[in-house]
């Protein structure tokens, strides 16, 4: 075959690939584009046919109105509070449990590992009603306790991620410390924790995102207006009959922004976390 034809065909397929990729980029980014541009549109502007992507006149008032319509800063404070405590819970408990499974040889380890996988299979709908009644019996519905407490026992998925990571740390390090007379807890604190920092970061951001975005638990447990979270607050813009789409989008941008920023800072950890947990489980 003529080498030139080969080259041209290669180039053509190359160009086609670029076009495909860029088209996909646009498709995947369009919801973000819609969200951001609509948040700067006037109501009239949002309701034009055919749709104009950019606002005819940029208005910033949607942001002001959105945070005025619902006590949005308060909701953000509530959400941050819940997120922070959840983060604390997972970061304390997850490495502890993972360490016992990865670095301590004890008789229950096998059972616990098996049960970890099993709990990931239990649909939340099964435990939802009994848990609701239990919290209710303790008078804790309406408080943040039912939202935060589950994070203080460690999420099975995060424990698995952490265990995989810990298994990768050479045992010789711990044995050396043992010879030096350090007990199990000292070894965990001085060696285990510092060496797991990348995995801790991964678990941290996963927890952050999960707690920040949680919808079902606040929906069921939180009723008072003072304690609502952002995900519930956002729904207040969905009226029964009319939706203030421009305000809603502004509110959504405020809601989403912290997560997106976090993602860009810790992009690498996301990839690592997904890869280790997905492949080796």
């Amino acid at each position, binding site marked *: 075959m003529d080498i030139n034809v080969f080259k041209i065909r290669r180039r053509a397929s190359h160009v086609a690939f670029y076009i495909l990729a860029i088209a996909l980029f646009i498709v995947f980014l369009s919801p973000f584009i819609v969200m951001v541009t609509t948040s700067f549109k006037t109501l009239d502007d949002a309701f034009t046919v055919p749709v104009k992507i950019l606002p005819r006149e940029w208005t910033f008032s949607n942001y002001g109105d959105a945070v005025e319509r619902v006590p949005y800063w308060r909701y953000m404070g509530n959400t941050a509070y819940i997120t922070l405590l959840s983060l604390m819970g997972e970061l304390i408990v997850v490495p502890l449990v993972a360490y016992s499974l990865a670095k301590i040889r004890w008789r229950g380890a096998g059972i616990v590992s098996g049960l970890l996988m099993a709990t990931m299979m239990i649909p939340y709908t099964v435990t939802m009603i009994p848990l609701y009644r239990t919290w209710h019996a303790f008078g804790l519905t*309406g408080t943040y306790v039912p939202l935060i407490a589950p994070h203080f026992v460690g999420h099975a998925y995060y424990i698995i991620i952490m265990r995989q990571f810990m298994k990768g740390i050479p045992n010789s390090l711990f044995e050396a410390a043992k010879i030096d007379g350090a007990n199990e807890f000292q070894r965990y604190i001085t060696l285990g924790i510092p060496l797991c920092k990348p995995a801790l970061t991964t678990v941290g951001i996963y927890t952050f995102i999960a707690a920040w975005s949680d919808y079902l638990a606040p929906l069921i447990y939180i009723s008072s*207006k003072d304690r609502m979270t952002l995900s519930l607050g956002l729904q207040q813009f969905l009226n029964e009959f009319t939706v203030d789409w421009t305000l809603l989008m502004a509110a959504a941008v405020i809601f989403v922004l912290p997560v997106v920023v976090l993602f860009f800072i810790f992009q690498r950890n996301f990839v690592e976390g997904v890869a280790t947990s997905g492949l080796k489980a």
Partner: protein
Amino acid sequence: MTRKTIAILLVLLCSLSFVFAQGGSEEANLTEDGRQIVTYWYYHKGNEATYQENAIARFNESQDKYFVQGFSVPDKQKYLVAMASDESPDVIALTNAEVISYQTSGLLEDMSTMGEANGFDFSIYDAPALTANSVDGRMYAFPLTSVVIQMFYNIDLLNSIGETEPPTTMEELFEMAEKVTTVDESGNIDILGYPLFPLASARQELIYAFGGRWAAEDGVTPTANCEGNLKSLEMNMAFREKYGVEQVQRFVATGNTNRYTPQDIFFAGKQLFRFDGPWFANQIREYNPDVNFGVAMVPGTEANPELLGVSRYENTSLAIPVVAKEKEGAYAFISWFVTEGAKDFLLEIGSLPANNTLFDDPDLLASNEAFPSFMAALKTANGIEAPRMDYSAEYTSLIDEYLDYVYNGTMTPQEAMDELQAQAESMAK
């Protein structure tokens, strides 16, 4: 960089959360000047929430014993969650249908007893308002507003087909609707004649106009496949099939998105007949005062002309949950709101009174061009109350589902209503 950012983020979060969490932790039951706090949840939003707050402010000024705090809680599932937990509001606003369904679970305080003990004048309520909020002869809420639906029509559109008077029977209405409905070159509906939108009126007034009912007189026997329901749906489908089931659905969907916005299809001159409430006149004034509209009664049929003006009868009512803590204060607020406090609120929100002393109020009648005819309909007291079986919430959602089957042409009216009836009867067992 990573460690630094984590630290910064955490510090930010900490400070944020402590600033905001403080307020949420402790809620005193007394105001600074020693007044008892009464919490009041209503489902209104936006402007309507503002009118609620104005009313609350007037109450708080009127006396010095209680202080009402209002919250807009549009998601009524939250009411239930709160009543089940220890955070029940003292007063809730809800529809009369919800009063019945809440009381089936024993959630509400007996207002008849409370009213009698406090010398409440029950004669301000006519029979429909009394029965709509009663279970076994006891009232469980005091109605604040009434809802009846009438027919708004676009005079310019009506004139464009050579008519001057609105229809009084559904047959006439159908004829006019056909004449006015226009379709563009690609088959899309441009102007809609038949009042298929809003969906709630299509489920109620458009059914009632044919003598159709979802429940028998007793309120608990389902009558989904009664003759009136079928007749209504047959005419409904005749119209849909003429202009294309898909096209009509799409037009209705657009109508739904734009409902009560400046782009509402009625304000845009794309709808001839609209079954809606009196507040709709306020909306027209606000969004498009140029619309040349009239108000008439919902038509009857040739066979049953006496059904002219038939409509749902609903209330927004005020009730006290049994688990409320401040029942005295709650009662004080409710009894004020439905009497002295009602007029100012109704003037702002554009709703009809439940209190019959306001039926002839000149200020109310003058405030809204649609009020005189709505008030007349209210006085005839032939509104239809929603079904009140103990499975009515499920029944309503079943009705929605089966109407969808009919509208989309998935089932014939007869098939759909028969099956709906069978489902409802199986729930009654």
